[in-house]
């Protein structure tokens, strides 16, 4: 029964010096879903995200992955379980080429990453796979470009390619469309839809149109606790949610729909 939820939290709480940023959050993410975590600024979305990905230790509560507790694991450990996160600011290795960025992710499982006595040419057999992954996100022609020279939207796509290289069962995306123009947003939405096939995605997102287009289920956070949960229609009809967060924005959406 627990297996239908790939990721679950029970009573997750985080306090910073007496300030409760996340308060008793029970989150359940179903396998195969694209699940969004939304809420007004300061609702604790990013804190929840950092707790889930172990970049912050929780004060109380439990995190379960496929029914097993992962509360005490380290950030790099859960990545190896297949829970791979992205970052708000595009997380790329700036002075490496796009291909090398992806290759760093491919390299770890082959087990020579501590081999300082081997030539880096021993990694060349990963190049084809790296370029395949770049192709999947439409970056084939950027393979040779130093990442620092790539436009912002492309960097985010590169981040997705690098994440895919980990063969994640679950991707945690922290505001994947933040700071993007409309054209890039559409591209990323398509990309997420494509790569989410056969995977579970949990994303923190501000852009409600992105959420409405992509997500199967939405959890609304306000002041550190869960305010509402459901699909987009249910959540956007909830008066509490309207009051706390969506306000006029939701009404506009409804009017236009």
């Amino acid at each position, binding site marked *: 029964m627990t297996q239908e939820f790939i990721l679950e939290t029970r009573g997750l709480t985080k306090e910073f010096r007496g300030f409760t940023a996340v308060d008793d959050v029970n989150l359940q993410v179903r396998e195969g879903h694209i699940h969004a975590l939304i809420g007004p600024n300061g609702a604790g979305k990013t804190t929840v995200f950092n707790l889930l*990905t172990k*970049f912050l230790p929780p004060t109380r509560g439990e995190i379960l992955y496929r029914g097993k507790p992962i509360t005490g694991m*380290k*950030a*790099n*450990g859960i*990545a*190896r379980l297949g829970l*791979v*996160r*992205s*970052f708000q600011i595009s*997380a*790329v*290795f*700036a*002075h*490496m*080429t796009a*291909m*090398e960025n992806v*290759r*760093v*992710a491919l*390299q*770890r499982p082959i087990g*020579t*990453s*501590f*081999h*300082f*006595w*081997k*030539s*880096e040419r*021993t*990694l*060349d*057999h990963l*190049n*084809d796979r790296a*370029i395949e992954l770049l192709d999947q996100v439409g970056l084939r022609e950027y*393979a*040779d470009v130093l990442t620092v020279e790539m436009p912002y939207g492309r960097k985010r796509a590169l981040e997705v390619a*690098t994440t895919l290289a*980990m063969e994640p069962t679950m991707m945690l995306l922290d505001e994947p469309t933040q700071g993007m123009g409309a054209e890039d947003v559409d591209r990323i939405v398509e990309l997420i839809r494509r790569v989410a096939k056969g995977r579970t995605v949990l994303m923190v997102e501000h852009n409600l149109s992105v959420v409405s287009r992509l997500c199967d289920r939405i959890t609304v956070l306000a002041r550190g606790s869960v305010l509402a949960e459901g699909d987009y229609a249910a959540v956007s009809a909830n008066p509490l949610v309207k009051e706390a967060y969506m306000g006029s924005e939701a009404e506009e959406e409804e009017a236009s729909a």
Partner: protein
Amino acid sequence: MSTTQTLTPTMKRQRRANLRRNAFYLILIVVGMVAPFLAYPVFLMKVLCFALFACAFNLLLGYAGLLSFGHAAFLATGGYITGYLLASYPAMTPEMGIIAGTLAAVVLGAAFGALSIRRQGIYFAMVTLALAQLVYFAYVQSPFTGGEDGLHGVPRGELFGIISLRSNLAMYYFVFAVFLIGFAIIQRAVHSPYGQVLKAIRENEPRAVSLGYNVDAYKLVAFILSAGIAGLAGSTKTVVFQLASLTDAHWHMSGEVILMTLLGGVGTLFGPIMGAGIVVSLQHMLGQSPLGNWVSVILGVIFVVCVLSFRSGIVGEINKMYHKNFK
């Protein structure tokens, strides 16, 4: 069988750069072979020992992004262990002494690293400085180091028990070989699968963590490698000069290696060698001139000018100019 490796234009460019670099190595080796006939070998050996020390430091600062302020401890440990063993056990050959000294620095590096690697930035520098001071005071008090007097009259002995190192020329070629081995180890580490991960960590540490890498372990390996090669430099220096003294353990020495590395160009292959060459030459020349007492002041001024006006160091600036004009 279908290992159709895709060679991208960048990689082809890199291969060409590798070829150029190999040509440069060849020139370096030839110059190194001829040098003792053009300059005083003892001076050259001093330059080589400090160049190796600076290269080891550069591996840590330039490629792992860790600023250690305690590298003197490794130089000194290598020197004292080698000096003590060679002076106390006449059966020991110089290469055995040097290997023992290097291993001692590796062990000390592992201990330092385990205690400091989780700290970031200035805290890391402070922890390494504090540990190095601890080691300094231990060496002042220990009987085996000779305390304030140091160890004198360490025999150079016979390499492998057959080749006498008493002549400066023989000694020089041995030191040159040691230098090349140390330099090659660093080069390989930088351009290895491990080097790729190290680069990724330096570029974006949280991302490297999210890709499943235990970044502290990778940094620790860099620290231990760097400590070991610093120890190798110290051990070799002791055999050359037949003495080991507290100067090597003093925090001045940790500062000096930072100066050499920054002056030559941190994160460049040849920068530390050039930086060491300049600093040692200045000390040598100024030490004999009436300006002798001003060495520290002059080095300090050079340091300030370097940090203010050419931050990427001499080799770094040359690289920049090259890329601007030939690309």
